[in-house]
Structure formats: C-alpha cells, structure tokens
C-alpha cells in the first residue's frame, strides 16, 4: 500500500513535466516557429528555463486553457496573468504587490491606446521564465530593477545612475531606493495624478517611508530627523494644508539624480543653495547657506535656535510658576481672611 502511494505520489510529482514534455516535443526545439506575414516568429520555450521559473511546477495547459488536443492547429488566446493573480484567487498566486493595480497605470493606458511599446506584465516579468523578485537572477530583483525600467526609460536611468541611491545599491545596500519604491510597482502614475505617490503631497510621504526608518537610515548613515523637521517647517505645514506650491523634498533635492550635500553637483551643496532656493525666493544669495536646514528646535543640533527655544521653554515655565503661585496665594489669603472673619 505504502509502495503504491509512493509511486502515485512520484507520478504526481512528475506530472507537470511529463505532461509538459508533450508540449516541448515541438516547443522545446530551438528552431520551432511559424512564418507569419513573411516573418519567422519563434515559438521556442526553453524547457530548462521554464522549469527553473516560479511557474515550473505548473502544466502548460493550466495557463493555455484553450489548448485541448495536441497538436493544436489554432493559435491559443493571449493569456491574462490576472486569470490567476487576482485578489481572492484559490490557487495561491501571490497578489502582495497588487498586480490588479496595473490597470490604473500610465502603462496600461498607453497600451489601451494602442502603443505597441507600452509594457504589459510580460515586459517586466518575462513570459515563460517568471522568477520571484527575491530571486537574484530575476529582472524584478531589487538590484536589477533600475536596469529593467532603464531598458525603456534611458534618460531617467542615466540620471538615476549618478544618484546616491544607485551608488548605495551598487555597493550592496539593497534598501536603497529603486524605481519602484517611489513610482509604485504596478500602478505607475504620473506625478500630476493626485493618487500618485509622487504628487506634491504624496512625495513627502514617499520619501518619509524610508527616511524616517531609523534602522535603514542608520545603515545608510543618513540623519533620520529630516522628515520630522520638514513637517514642522513652514514648507511642511503649508504643504500639509494643501498649498502645493510650497517646497517639497524634490524641490530642493532633485529626484532621479539625488546627491548628498557634500557632492559639488548636488543642488543642496552650499555653493548651489542660492540657485536652488532662488527658484522660489528671488532674493536668495549665499546667506541661505549660512545655517542648518531641517532643524528640530528642541535638539542641540539646532544650534542657536536650540538656545532660543530652551530659553523660552524655561522662561515660560518660570513665568507660569510665578503667576500661578501668586494667584494661589491671593486666593488662599482671601479664603483664610474670610474664614477668620467668620470665626
């Protein structure tokens, strides 16, 4: 009985590949293809690569459901990845990164408008060789994302490749921001869209996601107080209250080619600050570089502002105590006098 079960189980295990073997009889041949409109179109699928992919354990017909007999003489329908990857699916297809959100993206819109270059699922994930984003050989592995997006967005990749984010990524800091951290994975939207993570209001939340993460910033050796200090500044308060013309992170730091202040090419390098601030404040000159940005008054690092803040804190407290004591004394005197008069 046990032996029978083992054999059955082994058969089941072999199931997909042995079934797929029938497909690979043709599709596993490197020169297999059809001539369409006078052009050769390859229909080859590498069995080795397919089996190494995350979908390797499935049979071909689980996706190509319209293939019923082999050989098939009709062209199978185009597959929608969403036939498995929808929220609530019962086959365990992961939806952690909300693939359905793709339909809101600029990519989906361009594709619907008939742009043949607009990316669909397989443009980034490949058709038959999909690998997990955790797989270092996957195109969607964090470290490979810039190249993946950059294969179309060449100018953006060029700018990004100069940034401190890319430099950190190259140096093995996987936590460094890649395209998808700011642009979202599937619902890539233009910054002008209020739903975008890069809208004037969204951009602060987007940068804060990482820059307020103590552990990550410690690893990157970047001060973690910036987002908090910004939210208490004039710019931060104005933006929070819907004045989108107020400076947000990218107004001063740039976006794709973000560099630390120490870099002479950075817009926040002290030498470049007059120009950067001058975009909004026409009278800004080298004065604006004289003093810290992103200060929290209650922290020593704020310099002179810390002393002003501390003076007011203690002075206010002293005044409070004095006034309160005087009033309490006044009232207690009044009550005691009244009481002794009644005696």
């Amino acid at each position: 009985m046990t032996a029978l079960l083992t054999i059955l189980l082994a058969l089941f295990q072999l199931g997909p590949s042995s079934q797929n073997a029938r497909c690979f009889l043709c599709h596993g041949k490197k020169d297999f293809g059809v001539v369409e409109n006078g052009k050769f179109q390859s229909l080859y699928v590498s069995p080795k690569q397919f089996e190494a992919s995350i979908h390797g354990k499935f049979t071909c017909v689980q996706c190509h459901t319209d293939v019923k007999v082999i050989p098939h003489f009709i062209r199978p329908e185009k597959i929608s990845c969403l036939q498995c990857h929808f929220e609530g699916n019962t086959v365990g297809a992961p939806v952690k990164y909300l693939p359905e959100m793709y339909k809101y993206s600029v990519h989906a819109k361009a594709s619907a408008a008939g742009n043949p270059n607009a990316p669909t699922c397989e443009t980034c994930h490949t058709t038959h060789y999909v690998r997990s984003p955790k797989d270092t050989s996957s195109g969607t592995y964090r470290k490979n994302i810039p190249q993946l997006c950059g294969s179309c967005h060449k100018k953006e990749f060029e700018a990004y490749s100069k940034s401190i984010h890319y430099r950190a990524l190259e140096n093995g800091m996987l936590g460094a921001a890649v395209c998808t951290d700011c642009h979202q994975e599937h619902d890539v939207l233009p910054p002008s869209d209020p739903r975008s993570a890069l809208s004037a209001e969204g951009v602060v939340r987007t940068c804060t996601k990482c820059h307020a993460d103590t552990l990550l910033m410690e690893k990157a050796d970047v001060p973690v107080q910036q987002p908090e200090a910004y939210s208490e500044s004039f710019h931060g308060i104005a933006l929070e209250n819907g004045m989108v013309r107020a400076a947000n992170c990218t107004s001063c730091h740039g976006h794709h080619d973000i560099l630390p202040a120490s870099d002479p090419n950075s817009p926040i390098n002290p030498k470049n600050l007059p120009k950067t601030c001058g975009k909004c404040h026409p009278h800004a000159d080298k004065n604006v570089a004289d003093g810290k940005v992103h200060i929290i008054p209650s922290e020593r690092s704020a310099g002179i502002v810390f002393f002003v803040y501390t003076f007011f804190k203690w002075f206010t407290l002293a005044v409070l105590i004095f006034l309160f004591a005087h009033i309490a004394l006044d009232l207690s005197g009044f009550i005691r006098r009244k009481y002794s008069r009644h005696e």
Partner: protein
Amino acid sequence: MNDKIQRFSRSWRIQHLLLMVSVLLLMMSGFSMKYSETLWGKILIFLEGGFQARGALHRLSAVLLFITAIYHLVYISFTREGKREFKSLLPTKKDFSDLKNSILYDLLKRAEKPAFGRYSYREKVQYWAFFVFIVLMFVSGLVMWFHDFFFAFFPKWAFDVTFALHGGTATLIILFLVLWHMYVVHLSPANFPGNSSFWHGDVSEKWLKENHLLEYKSMTGDSKTKQPEEKED
C-alpha cells in the same frame, strides 16, 4: 447712579478694544497654524476660511494691531491724558514694596491691604509685558512676512531664530492673558465674576476704594465729593 465713577476714558477704551480684537484674531489665526495637525487646529482653520485665508487674517489683524500701536504711541506722547496715563504706568519703587506687602497680606502676616495707585504692580506688569511682546512680535513677524526681501540681508539661521522667537513669545502672551490678565481683571475675588469697566469705563466708588485707594483719594481729594476724572458723557 451717583455711585459710578468713570475710570477709563473713551480713547483708552477704544485702544483696549482694538488691542483685544486684534490680539484675539492673531492668537486664533496663529495658533491654528502652529497646531494645524490637531483637531482643534483644523476646526479653527476651517472657521477662518481655509489655510490661505488664515494667513491673510493673521496679516490683516497684524496691521490692525500696528495701527493700534501707532494710535497708542501718539496717545501717550502727545495728548495730556495719554501722558498722564503713561506716567502712572511707569514702574516705581513702591511697586516692589507693594508686591512684598501684598504677599505678606495674603500670608496673613499683615493686617492692611497695600494701598494701590491708579495702576498697581499687577496692571503695570501686564502693560510692560505686552509692550515688550508686541515689539518682539512685530519685529519677528515682519521678518517672516517679508522673508523674500530679508533673504538678501539675513543668514538662514536668523529666520529660524525668528520663527522660534515668534512662537515662544506667542505662548508667553497667551499664558499672560489667560492666567494673569483674566485673573486680575475678572476672576479675582474683587472682580468675580467679571469687571465690565473695559466696556463702559465706569467702576463703583466702593470698588475703587477697595482696589485703588490712592487713586480714589486723589480723585476725591480726600473728601467725599465725587469728581469724575475725565469727561462726562
């Protein structure tokens, strides 16, 4: 009706009213920004007609306060009444002994309440605190209002200091108003539940005698006949 004595002239009351209105508006529109992330901050901003309108209201009430300050400076420098009022607001040695005696009186170590003039140390400290506060608020407020212009003159940290100064002074002002001014003029036993002389300028003879004995004496010339100080309208 004979009991009434006019203590504050019409001009004095108008100045007080302008000050009250502008400072209340300034506090409302200022603190609603400082605490804009809190619920009551949001409610205040809503009542002020949104964030931009809040800023406009703050600047408008600052202009009103500025006009009030100019009015006051002219009043104390050029009118006879104003000069006299200002003189009685200047701190004297007696104020310090009054403070000491007032504390002793409240500790029941002294039987007699100190006799105050027209303005006791309690009122003088309010006047001078406000004098300093308003100068500080004006200077820091102007720098922030016209920051684009001042960028050419001041380093970046000066604006941060200005911001901290403006906020710190605002907190002091609200503390002084709520805790001290409200207590001294309305909630203290002598005035409870309130004193409306800021509106009509009149106080009762009994009240004046109890609270500003020296002023009462100088008004009546130690006799029992009443002579309203300024005008009779």
